[in-house]
C-alpha cells in the first residue's frame, strides 16, 4: 500500500470515530441521571413550566429521533443554544467569545514547550552524562510531575509577590507594561489587526505585548508537561542518532561538527518528536480547565467546566463535539506529518 492510500484510509477511519465519540457524549448527557429541565428551572421548579420546557426542547420526542436530530445538527454545524449559563445565546457566539483566549494560551504554550523543551533535550543529548545533562533531565522529570493547577497557584503567588520579595526592585505587574497577574488577556487587537496596526503601530504593539505578558505565566504552566516530554524524547532521540552507523560514517568522512549536528542528527532526531508535539493537543485541552481556572482566563476550558457544573447540556454536547474534532484533526495531522517526514510509514500496511 502506498503511503497516500494509507493516509486516505486513516482519514476515512476517523469518520466513524467522530460519530462514535459524539454518540458517547449524547448517551452521557441524555441517558445519564442529570435532568436538563431541573437544571434550567433551578429552584423555581413547577410541573407546568417543566412540561413547557420539555415541549420546547423536544425532550418529549422518542430518543432515537432526539439522537438523529442531535447528530444532524452537530454535523451540519447548527450548534444550538446555551440553556443555562447564557440562555438564548448561541453556542457559536459563546465559542467566538471564549475560544480566542484558549487559542492564544495554547499557541504560546506550544511555542514555549517547543522552544524550551526541544533545545534543552537536544543539548542534554549532545552532552550525555555530564552535570548539565543530569540537571536538565532531572529538572524536566520533576517539572513534568508537578500538577498543573498547583504549579499555577505557586506561580501566581510568586508573581504577585515579586515586588515585596525583591524590595521593589522588580515587580511583575509593572514590568514592561502594567498588567494584573490573574486576568483574561485583552485580545481586542486581533480584530482586523492589519488596519489597527497601520493606524496606530505603537498602540497595537503595546496591546500585543500586554496580551502576551498576560498569558505568559499560564502558558508556561500549561506547556510544562509537554515541555518535559519533549526534553526527554529529544534527549533519547539525539543519543540514538549519534550512536547510529550513518553518523559514524559521516564523521569518518570528515563532515564538520556543526554540519553533523544540524544536517544529520537534528533532522532525524525530530521524527520521534512528531507524536509528542501533536499529542500536546490532548494535554492542552485537558489541562486548560485547571490553568484557566487558576489564572482566571475565561476560555473554552473554563466555559466547559461552568457548562458542566451548571448542567448546560446542549453547550456541553457542542463543546465535546468541537474538542473531539480538534483531537481527531491533530491525529490526522500527526499521520500526515509522518507520511511526509518518514518515507517508511505505510508500506507495511
Amino acid at each position, binding site marked *: 500500500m502506498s503511503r497516500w492510500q494509507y493516509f486516505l484510509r486513516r482519514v476515512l477511519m476517523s469518520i466513524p470515530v467522530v460519530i462514535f465519540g459524539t454518540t458517547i457524549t449524547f448517551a452521557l448527557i441524555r441517558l445519564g441521571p442529570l435532568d436538563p429541565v431541573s437544571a434550567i428551572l433551578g429552584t423555581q421548579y413547577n410541573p407546568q413550566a417543566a412540561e413547557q420546557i420539555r415541549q420546547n426542547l423536544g425532550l418529549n420526542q422518542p430518543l432515537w429521533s432526539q439522537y438523529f436530530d442531535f447528530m444532524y445538527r452537530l454535523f451540519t454545524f447548527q450548534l444550538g443554544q446555551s440553556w443555562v449559563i447564557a440562555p438564548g445565546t448561541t453556542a457559536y457566539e459563546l465559542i467566538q467569545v471564549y475560544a480566542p483566549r484558549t487559542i492564544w494560551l495554547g499557541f504560546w504554550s506550544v511555542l514555549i514547550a517547543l522552544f524550551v523543551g526541544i533545545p534543552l533535550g537536544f543539548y542534554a543529548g549532545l552532552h550525555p552524562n555530564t552535570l548539565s545533562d543530569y540537571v536538565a533531565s532531572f529538572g524536566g522529570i520533576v517539572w513534568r510531575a508537578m*500538577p498543573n*493547577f498547583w504549579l499555577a497557584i505557586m506561580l501566581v503567588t510568586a508573581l504577585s509577590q515579586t515586588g515585596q520579595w525583591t524590595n521593589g526592585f522588580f515587580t511583575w505587574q509593572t514590568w514592561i507594561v502594567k498588567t494584573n497577574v490573574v486576568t483574561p488577556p485583552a485580545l481586542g487587537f486581533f480584530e482586523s489587526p492589519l488596519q489597527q496596526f497601520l493606524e496606530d503601530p505603537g498602540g497595537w504593539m503595546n496591546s500585543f505585548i500586554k496580551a502576551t505578558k498576560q498569558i505568559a505565566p499560564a502558558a508556561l504552566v500549561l506547556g510544562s508537561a509537554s515541555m518535559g516530554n519533549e526534553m526527554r524524547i529529544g534527549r533519547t532521540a539525539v543519543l540514538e542518532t549519534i550512536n547510529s552507523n550513518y553518523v559514524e560514517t559521516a564523521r569518518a568522512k570528515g563532515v564538520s561538527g556543526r554540519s553533523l549536528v544540524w544536517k544529520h542528527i537534528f533532522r532525524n532526531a525530530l521524527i520521534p518528536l512528531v507524536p509528542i508535539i501533536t499529542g500536546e493537543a490532548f494535554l492542552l485541552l485537558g489541562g486548560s480547565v485547571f490553568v484557566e481556572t487558576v489564572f482566571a482566563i475565561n476560555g473554552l476550558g473554563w466555559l466547559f467546566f461552568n457548562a458542566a457544573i451548571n448542567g448546560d447540556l446542549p453547550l456541553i454536547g457542542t463543546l465535546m463535539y468541537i474538542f473531539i474534532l480538534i483531537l481527531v484533526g491533530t491525529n490526522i495531522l500527526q499521520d500526515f506529518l509522518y507520511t511526509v517526514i518518514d518515507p517508511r510509514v505505510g508500506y507495511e500496511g
Partner: protein
Amino acid sequence: MSTPTETEIPLRQRVAENPQPALIWAAIGAVLIGVELGAILQVIAAIAGVIINLIPGDPGAAALSSLQESLKTIPTLVSRDFIPNQGYWDGSQWVGTFLGLSPAAAWAVRVVVVYAYAFAVLAWLWNGYKRYRQYYRRVDWTPRDDVVNRFRGHTWGQFGLVITIAFVVMAIFAPALGPTTMEENILQPYDYEVSYWDEETQSVETALVGEANLGSGSQGAGDENVGPMSYDDYGRFHPFGTATNGKDLFTQVVFGARISLTIAVVAMGIAGIIGLSLAMITAYYKGLADLAIVLASDSIQSLPVIMVLILMLVIFQGTWLKDLYDGAVLIILIFSLVYWPFIWRSIRGPAFQVSEQDWIDAAKSFGQTPGQVMRKHMAPYVFSYMLIYASLSLGGIIISVAGLSYLGLGIAPPTPEWGRLIADGQQYVASPSWHISLIPGVLITLVVTGLNAFGDGIRDAIDPQADTGDEAAATGGGA
C-alpha cells in the same frame, strides 16, 4: 542431562530435604508477623464485617463485632497504643506520652518504627526470594532473574521504588502514622476531649477537640497560624501544621495518600483486566473483532480525558454511586472506562506477535479451548508490557484525581484528598500559612516523580530495548 524425575520433585519435598534455610526464614517471619498479629487479625475481621454487611440478615454480626472489640486489645508494635504521642504537660512533665517524651519526639519514634517495620518486612520477603532461588528452585536460571538483575543495576528505578514504597507504607499505615486519628480530629471532633496545660490558670484543663481545632486554624496571620513542626495552644504537635479549619494537616495527608493510592491502583487494575481481555480476543480472533475494538478504543481516546471525567462526575453527582466510599468508587469506574483503550493499545502489538507463534497452533491442535489458549499461552507474554504501561500511568491518575478534587468534583469532604487541601490553602500561599497548599503539592510531585522513575525502572528491566516513543501518553502530565 537431568532425568525428568529429578526436576519434578515437589517444592515441599525439596524443602524437607534441606530445611534449615526455610526454617530460619520462617522463624524471622513469625516474629515479624507476631508483633503485628493483632492488626492483621483486625484487618481480616474488618473485611469479614464488610462481607457480612452485604449478606441479608447479617448472620453472626454481633459475634463478629465482639470479636473485633477483643482483637483491638491485642497489643501490636506499630500502633498508637504502644507508642502514644497524645499527652499533656502537667506543669513539670509530659503525661500520657511514650516514655514521657514530648509529643513531637514520641510521634517521631512511631514514624521511625513504622517505616523500620515496613522495610524489615520487605527485606524479609526479598530474603525469602533469594533463599528460594539459592536452595530450592529447580533451575539455575530463568529469564525473570535477568529482569531482577537489571533492576538491581538501575539506580533511577530503585530511587523510584523507595519513594513508591514510602508512599504505599504511608497509605497502609495511615492510622498509625498520624499524630492524631481521623475519627477524633476530622470526623467527630466534638465527641472527643483533649487535655492541655493552661498557662493562665497554671493547671490542666480539658477542651473538646472541635473547640481546640477552632482555636488552632491556619488562616494567614501570625497568631492564627500553626506552621509545620510546631505545637498549637493546646499542646498538640502538628508535623505539617494545621489546615485552615484547625484539623491536623499530616493526618489528612496520610489518609489522602490512602484514597489516592486506592483509586489509582484499583482503576488501573480494572482497566488492565479489560484491556488484557480485549487484547486476547482481538489477537485470537483478529478481523472483525479487532476492527470493532479499534473503533471503540479510537473513539474513547479521541475524547478529551479530563473533560469526560468532569462531565461524568457532574452527571453522576446526585446518584447513589457518588456515595460509595465518598465518591472514590465512581472515580475508579470512570477512570477504568477511560483508560482501558490506552492499555489495550499498548499490548495489542505484542499480543498479535504472540498469536502468530507456533505454540499457539500447537495448543489449538491439542484441542485446547480458545479461553485456555488465551489464558495459558498468550496472556503471560503480554502481561509485562501491561505492567510497564500501568506503572507509568499511576502518577497521571493521582494528578488527575487531585485536579478533580481541586475543582470540587472529586472526593467528597470530610474525607481528605490532596487536591482539596491545595484548594483550601490557595488563598494563603503568600501568608505564613503557606504550608497548607505547598506541602501536598510537593508530595504529589515527589510521588509522581517516584512512580515515573519506578515505571522507567520496570520498563528497562523487563524490556531493555523497549521503544520509548509511546511513553508521553502514558506518563505524568495533564491536570
